[in-house]
């Protein structure tokens, strides 16, 4: 940037809300609405008289009627009072509080701009982008072969779901299937990943609301899963294990014993957590009726996963749009109707049980066979074949230099990640790199619903409500 650092330029104020919804792109109208006297102020000179509502970090004005009216009209129900209290306090009573981006309870770099009336939250504006690294642009520069390496770093607490979603989308465009054993391994690994993610969530959320022992227990049990991941994939996170065409390697010898150990260990721990938390009067006080979301808000904002299922919407991608043969295993989708932090705990604890139920079935019925497709255009040949066959050497060379070409087309694939519906919209133009990869991260929608969740609650409940949403900034900012 060519400006000296103490000159503030750019669009500092949100465009004024036009009456009647006139388009913002109208020539002449928009730029003047966006400009403020503050833009021209150079620090060191006399400051403009009216500096309320501005910092050097961008728009500070919140929109009074952002979505309450839209929601009411859309749902035909009474979802109002999200932003406006009955009596508007005078300017002296309102306090603006910035939480984050370095606040420990945001679990990442989320910034909340909170408008307070005493201890009551009037409005909240989430400000994101602090972790944006342009991974969707990066995806366009990597081949389909390399794609999972990139997407696995997005939602870094359930990396295998990212890889699975990308692989399913690529395979859909290619029109290939994977062997039964590959599908079963994928289900096994992603369900274990869900368990690990929920355990970590229980641990950090427990910490946030004051249950320090929960923090230690959650990490302890999660370690069982991570050890198994390390043994299978070589890494504890960012595995690059599920790839288009199958998985990178077969399960290690004796994996059944490890899985049995995980199931027994986590189930034993789960009993501890429930007796530790669910009847504890302090815990009840801090979670019951806190951060409530109505089913109408769930639908309008596209909230999925445990948040939706705690609010009475029993949508689960695994049941609605089954993938990787997950429909052949018995499991239930827990649904609670309270919509508060307490019910989100119940949903996630029960989901851990259901995931372990799936894992147990996969362990008992693991089919024999290949762990990746034998289509040599997509998966590299076994190492031994390269010494024997010119054809195999050529395939190996082509795959690791150019990658494989994917027919032109577009597809949307979704999987149920630990946080909700993780979708990828993949466009190919017939080359060996994606033309466009859009990732619909569940946390992105969940950050967006925070204003509705927090409005009219107490400032002390912010931490519990925010933690219960399980927003992961790697998933939000990408």
């Amino acid at each position: 940037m060519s400006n000296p650092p103490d000159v503030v330029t750019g669009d500092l104020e949100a465009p004024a809300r036009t009456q009647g919804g006139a388009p913002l792109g109208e020539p002449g109208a928009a730029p003047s609405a966006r400009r403020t006297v503050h833009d021209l102020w150079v620090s060191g000179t006399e400051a403009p008289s009216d500096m309320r509502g501005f910092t050097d970090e961008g728009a500070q004005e919140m929109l009074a009627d952002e979505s309450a009216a839209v929601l009411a009209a859309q749902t035909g129900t009474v979802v109002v009072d999200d932003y406006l209290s009955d009596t508007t306090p005078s300017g002296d009573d309102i306090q603006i509080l910035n939480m984050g981006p370095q606040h420990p309870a945001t679990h990442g770099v989320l910034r909340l701009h909170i408008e307070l009336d005493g201890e009551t939250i009037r409005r909240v504006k989430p400000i994101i982008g602090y972790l944006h690294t342009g991974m969707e642009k990066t995806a366009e520069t990597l081949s389909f072969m390399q794609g999972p390496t990139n997407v696995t770093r997005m939602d870094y607490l359930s990396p295998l779901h990212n890889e699975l979603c990308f692989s399913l989308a690529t395979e859909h465009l290619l029109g290939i299937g994977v062997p039964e054993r590959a599908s079963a391994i994928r289900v096994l690994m992603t369900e274990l990943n869900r368990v690990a993610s929920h355990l970590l969530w229980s641990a950090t959320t427990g910490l946030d609301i004051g249950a320090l022992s929960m923090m230690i227990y959650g990490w302890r049990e999660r370690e069982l899963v991570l050890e198994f991941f390390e043994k299978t994939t070589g890494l504890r996170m960012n595995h690059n294990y599920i790839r288009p065409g199958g998985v990178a390697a077969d399960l290690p010898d004796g994996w059944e014993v490890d899985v049995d150990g995980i199931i027994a260990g986590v189930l034993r721990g789960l009993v501890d957590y429930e007796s530790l938390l669910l009847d504890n009067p302090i815990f009840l006080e801090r979670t019951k009726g806190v951060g409530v979301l109505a089913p109408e808000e769930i639908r309008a904002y596209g909230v999925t996963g445990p948040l939706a299922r705690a609010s009475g919407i029993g949508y689960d991608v695994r049941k609605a749009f089954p993938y990787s043969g997950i429909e052949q295993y018995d499991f239930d989708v827990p649904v609670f109707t309270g919509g508060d932090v307490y019910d989100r705990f119940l949903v996630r604890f029960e989901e851990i049980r259901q995931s372990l139920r799936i894992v147990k079935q996969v362990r008992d019925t693991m089919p024999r066979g290949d762990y990746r497709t034998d289509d040599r255009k997509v998966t590299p040949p076994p190492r031994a074949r390269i010494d024997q066959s010119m054809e195999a050497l050529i395939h190996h060379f082509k795959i690791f230099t150019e990658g494989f070409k994917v027919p032109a087309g577009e597809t949307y694939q979704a999987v149920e990640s630990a946080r909700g519906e993780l979708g990828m919209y993949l466009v190919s133009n017939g080359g060996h790199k994606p033309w466009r990869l859009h990732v619909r991260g569940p946390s992105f929608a969940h950050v967006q619903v925070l204003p509705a969740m927090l409005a009219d609650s107490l400032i002390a409940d912010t931490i519990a409500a925010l933690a219960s949403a399980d927003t992961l900034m790697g998933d939000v900012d990408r």
Partner: protein
Amino acid sequence: MNRIEAIAAGVPGAAVEDSLGQAVIRVTPEALVAAASAARDAGFDFFVDLCAVDHLTRDPRFDVVVNLLSLEPPERVRLIAGVPGDDATIASITGVFAGADFYEREAFDLFGIEFGGHPDLTRILLPDEWVGHPLRKDAPVGSVPVQFKGSADWTPGTSVGAPGTGHQLMAGPVPSADPFKEANQAT
């Protein structure tokens, strides 16, 4: 006639397509709001996703893609509207789905598509002063310039990316009063 065909029948210029087994309704940019509204009334009331695609050489240049979901019965539909490159403007669907708010801001931020009628169309992922829209196909992939001693275009004492070194991280004109307008014209 199934639900999706019924939605398309009520929207002028809409056509149903099958994209590898997934239902797609292609609509004109003017009809996107009407199509979203019709889909919502037909039961696709769960907003899932909105994103943009830059086809660069195609006319219209951009696609705005809206993913909707019906819970009972489980079914997806995708609305795709082509947006021309020289006038990348389309009406916002935040009036139909409140959840489209952040997604439209993201598409505006990364592609420079203006959503008319959006309540707060500001950059969401990038800093407010950013010039250009990086997910456009004509935006270069960023890189960290490596300066070697003796390099023809490096003067001792200058910092990496300083003007005149030929290694600007961000291409384009100097930021002006309305950065994205200028960047649009430059492309």
